[in-house]
């Protein structure tokens, strides 16, 4: 906790953020633009390279031709099968990985700032355990009569769990620590409910099916998922950027923020609801992909410092690039078999994070 507060509120060596002196502002802004351009270029390049990699051997030239044809340029001389592999499997899956990575990383960054807790992540307010309860109710008990699918159940469960957290937190005074505690309570409650349902009525096969899904997998990604999640994340990012200056003020404590004329309660409620909706949407599409939302915001702070106007886009870019590559490993490493992406996020991400932590050591 103390280290995290220092991370945000302490003087940032790389500059940036609204509190820094104005000297050299132009140079920094230029650096910021260059950084954003480089980041975007890296993301586009990552997606482009990722869709040329896969168990099926499709030539790079064919991949380019297929994408070009769908975008209205030229004609691809390939079979329907190859076309489907690139346009309906690899591209939507890679784009969904980018969207999930960006969305989860943004939600993590906001949760960490809002709750003033470096250990906060998008799931800290009970969303993933609520989603698992919802999913288990659908799969094991057949609630919903086939009308509400697995992802619908997960979304409803996630939103319900979040509502429970808000109610608990409101009753307890809504300070950041109370919100975190309410989240812990709701997480425990819904995990217990899930375990209860599983132990009392599921068979091993059902449990395995639900668990695989909960570990996070982008295997079922289609264009409709990309459009829905992409839209939700984009709107969420715009809203968060709009209140970014207020979010910076939160770093100095809620009293200080209030004395700067910021409507603390409303901003906090707005951000909690927005991040909860983003997370619930992503979890219902791809399961609870861990690690991204916890660790990548810290990596982004190491690059651009704590100011949210720069932190949020950077976090989004790093999250997107990271998950694109992680999912590429998950779907190709054990060809023709698949790995749950959540397993790979931790295996690839923890060593990377260790390097960041090590490089940032110093007075905390």
């Amino acid at each position, binding site marked *: 906790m103390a280290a995290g507060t220092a991370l945000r509120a302490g003087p940032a060596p790389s500059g940036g953020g609204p509190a820094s002196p104005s000297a050299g502002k132009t140079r920094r802004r230029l650096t910021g633009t260059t950084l954003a351009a480089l980041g975007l270029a890296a993301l586009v390049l990552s997606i482009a390279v990722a869709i040329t990699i896969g*168990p*099926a051997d499709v030539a790079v030239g064919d991949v380019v031709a297929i994408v070009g044809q769908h975008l209205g340029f030229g004609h691809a001389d390939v079979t329907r099968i190859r076309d489907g592999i690139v346009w309906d*499997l*690899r591209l939507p899956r890679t784009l969904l990985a980018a969207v999930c990575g960006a969305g989860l990383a943004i939600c993590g960054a906001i949760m960490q700032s809002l709750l003033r807790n470096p250990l906060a992540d998008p799931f800290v307010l009970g969303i993933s355990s609520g989603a698992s309860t919802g999913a288990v109710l659908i799969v094991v008990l057949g609630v919903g009569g086939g009308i509400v699918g697995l992802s619908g159940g997960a979304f409803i469960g996630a939103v319900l769990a979040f509502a429970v957290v808000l109610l608990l937190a409101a009753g307890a005074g809504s300070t950041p620590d109370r919100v975190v505690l309410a989240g812990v309570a709701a997480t425990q409650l819904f995990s217990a409910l899930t375990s209860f349902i599983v132990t009392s009525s599921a068979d091993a096969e059902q449990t395995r099916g639900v668990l695989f899904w909960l570990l996070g*997998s982008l295997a*079922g990604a*289609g264009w409709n998922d990309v459009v829905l999640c992409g839209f939700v994340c984009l709107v969420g990012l715009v809203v968060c950027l709009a209140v970014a200056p207020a979010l910076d003020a939160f770093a100095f404590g809620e009293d200080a923020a209030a004395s700067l004329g910021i409507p603390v309660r409303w901003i906090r409620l707005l951000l909690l609801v927005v991040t909860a909706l983003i997370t619930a949407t992503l979890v219902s599409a791809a399961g609870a992909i861990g690690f991204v939302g916890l660790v990548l915001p810290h990596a982004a702070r190491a690059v651009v410092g704590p100011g949210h106007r720069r932190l949020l886009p950077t976090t989004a870019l790093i999250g997107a690039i990271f998950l694109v590559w992680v999912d590429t490993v998950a779907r190709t490493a054990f060809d023709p*078999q698949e790995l749950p992406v959540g397993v790979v996020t931790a295996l690839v991400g923890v060593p990377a994070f260790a390097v960041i932590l090590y490089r940032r050591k110093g007075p905390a």
Partner: protein
Amino acid sequence: MRRVVHLALGLQDRMVGTATWTDRIRPNLAPSHGENRDDESGDGPRTKPLRLSTIQTEVRQLAQIFDVRAKGEALAADLQRRLEQVRADNAARDPKEISIASWFANTESPYVAGCCGSSGIISRAAGVRNVFADTQDEFPQVSWETMLDRDPTVLVLGDLQRKSQTGDKLADKIRFLETDPVTKRLTAVRKKRYVILNGADMNPSIRTVDGAEKVSAGIRRLGLVR
């Protein structure tokens, strides 16, 4: 458990494999176990292909336990005769002509039959090539990309009477295959070349032979064999 008792009774020559659930084999029994090592796990990788003789042995063991040996022998012989019939019907053809993939369950990332379980017996007898014969797990979980890439001539679909994953029931499988923008590009889907098996046909059991008969009849019904 039954098999551990067999080892203790010195019946290892009558066993084709062992399965232990939580522990390694008891040290004093390990030598007998080592003499005939063909570990069968329910769902993990197989080191050796399953053979009909394994199933026949289990039939005979059960018949012996319940003291109906004659019936056991008759059933084992009947399984043998029926499988031989399927093999004879399909022996003249090159197995490379017709390729299959056996889809067990799950729509997101399908579980398909690997090389060496029940599906191996079925493929060898019916003279077809399993496109996932390069995997040793009983039911490896693969990606649709690989399925599209290997584009089998025929899809063998399991009609599972359970509801624990997506695409268990036959109707769910066919609805998914024919509406999903990816899977409807498969040759077998466009030409509706399906052969339907029960879950038990796809798992090692006396119904493995039913599976072989159904696949053999199926490729004829689909007009793939003259």
